[in-house]
């Protein structure tokens, strides 16, 4: 146990000393903060389309009565058009005959003058829309759902790849430099593996927790407390799932990396694990509105850290579902640790050519 902790401590100190790590963490933090702030600004402004009307015309009164338009008054038709040309407004709304006059032959009674493309928002505001009734209304704005999915997917992907490759490099470094021989003659192989996984998991967990706190503070500071309230539980579950999910991935990274003896070979040997990390990322981006895919994702151990928080955010998961998914994740993680430590201990001393997975399992 003492050995495990010493190994974990070393992993953490060496990592925290690396400038590349500190800089990339800083960039990731800034990106999270920026996306929260920008999201707040864009969502908050939702600026209304601007239109100009001729002051005192009958159209002016009716347009001003329409909700969702920012109306500017112009002294004449030409002046209203000029406002369109110089970009002050999106469109000018005139009478049906194109003058400032009263209705006329045009069905809506309006003529909309715009610069180079039909101003959809303005047209929509002036149109008569049929009543729409949703049978299954979504709790969340689809755009926000997309961004939340992107955020969960990206943070999981980035952290898993970063710390997964860190642990892979550290395993191969020890194997390549043969320091592993000294380590193995000093502490049990399981203590060594456990220390590596623990150290990197703590780092990854720390980073994820910091991101979660930062996102929470950012949401509060930009006045998006409603979003925070609906996102909060998802973020907390994300952190919990990530903690276990990362241990799973870290064991896989350590085991596969132990098969090779050179840093150059890490990429190819860990590629299958990297795929396991990338797939949830793409799935959640493309299928965040597909309940079936999300439902499956939320139980598959590799994608549960992304899938389950997403479903919680969408409100499609029952209260017991995250607990069940967590149990599945923990069981699979335990199994992978056993298998991984077998591969790891059987491969560590075989330097040179890549060890075949079958040989590593057989010992």
């Amino acid at each position, binding site marked *: 146990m003492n050995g495990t902790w010493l190994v974990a401590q070393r992993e953490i100190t060496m990592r925290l000393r690396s400038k590349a790590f500190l800089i990339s963490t800083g960039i990731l933090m800034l990106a999270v903060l920026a996306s929260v702030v920008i999201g707040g600004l864009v969502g908050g402004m939702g600026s209304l389309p601007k239109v100009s009307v001729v002051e005192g015309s009958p159209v002016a009164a009716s347009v001003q009565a329409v909700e969702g338009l920012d109306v500017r008054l112009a002294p004449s038709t030409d002046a209203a058009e000029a406002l369109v040309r110089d970009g002050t407004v999106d469109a000018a709304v005139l009478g049906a005959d194109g003058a400032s006059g009263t209705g006329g032959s045009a069905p809506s009674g309006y003529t909309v003058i715009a610069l180079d493309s039909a101003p959809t928002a303005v047209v929509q505001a002036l149109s008569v829309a049929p009543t729409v009734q949703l049978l299954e209304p979504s709790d969340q704005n689809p755009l926000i759902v997309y961004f939340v999915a992107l955020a969960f997917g990206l943070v999981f992907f980035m952290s898993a790849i970063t710390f997964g490759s860190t642990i892979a490099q550290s395993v191969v*470094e020890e194997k390549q430099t043969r320091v592993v*021989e000294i380590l193995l*003659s000093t502490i049990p192989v399981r203590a060594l593996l456990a220390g590596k996984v623990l150290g990197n998991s703590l780092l990854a967990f720390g980073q994820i927790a910091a991101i979660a706190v930062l996102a929470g503070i950012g949401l509060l500071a930009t006045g998006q407390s409603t979003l925070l309230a609906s996102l909060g539980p998802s973020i907390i579950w994300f952190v919990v799932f990530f903690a276990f999910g990362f241990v799973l991935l870290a064991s896989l990274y350590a085991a596969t990396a132990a098969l090779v003896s050179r840093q150059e070979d890490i990429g190819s040997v860990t590629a299958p694990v990297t795929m396991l990390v990338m797939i949830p990322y793409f799935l959640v981006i493309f299928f965040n509105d597909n309940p079936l895919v999300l439902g499956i994702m939320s139980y598959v151990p590799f994608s549960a850290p992304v899938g389950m928080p997403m479903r919680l955010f969408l409100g499609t998961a029952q209260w017991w579902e995250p607990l069940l998914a967590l149990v599945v994740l923990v069981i699979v993680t335990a199994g992978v640790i056993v298998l991984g430590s077998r591969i790891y201990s059987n491969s560590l001393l075989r330097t040179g050519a890549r060890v075949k997975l079958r040989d590593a399992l057989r010992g």
Partner: protein
Amino acid sequence: MLDVAHVSRSFGGLKALDDVSFTVGAGRMTGFVGGNGAGKTTTMRIILGVLSSDSGQVSLDGRALSSADRALFGYMPEERGLYPKMKVAEQIVYLGRLHGMSPAAAKASTDRLLERLALTERANTTVESLSLGNQQRAQIAAALVHDPEVLVLDEPFSGLDPLAVESVQGVLAEHAARGVPVLFSSHQLDIVERICDDLVVIAGGTIRASGSKATLQSQHGGSRYEIELSVDAGWIRDLEGITVVDFDGGYARFDVTPGAPGVAAAQQVLTEGLRRGSVLRFSPEHPSLAQIFKEVIQ
């Protein structure tokens, strides 16, 4: 005393070690020699428990080794085995702590060893920026930091300049003097010859010879003599049972047939020399380790 008894190990179909047995006595510097692929590294790894044996066992003072015992061993693998990006002192302290030392004890022992190995100035340098010789010294410090009860060193002298060989040799001798069994392998037979007390020769996975250096030398030598006389030594050529291999005025080197008749023939040369004048020197020539090695691995 470290006792390796009937250890065998195969890799796939290849028998790497076949019934390997030898002992490393307390306080004995034991040289472990053999060609490439003879089984030295495999044997050392099995002693350290890094590799398991198919059969046979390793014991210390009559007890089978546990992993707790092995944590008290000092091991230096053949290839450089340190973290390239860690500082020298930090790394040695880390290994000391892995061996179960307290932070303070590990620090004190590290400082002492670095001082002893003339590495103090490099204590805060990363290992990768050390010269090869200094890396090797750091490696030795790493093997010794926890004051091991048994030392197993694979090629501790490779890549060292003569001065470094001397300082490493000194450190190892200190440990041996405290009663620690020291097993070291080397390709540099002259160094082994100079510093070892005992010798183990391995070839093709089997032990070909083992025992004290003196015993092996007398077992494998004793048929060549040197004599130096105050008078011309030409008469030696005429004696029966003597083959002169080198001759220069009063000096002669000659072979006799191995065994008792040969010893008698040599004694006869000495007696005759004394009769003719004074004998300045007379000695059996010890075979060099290289000669013994060549002889036993055939």
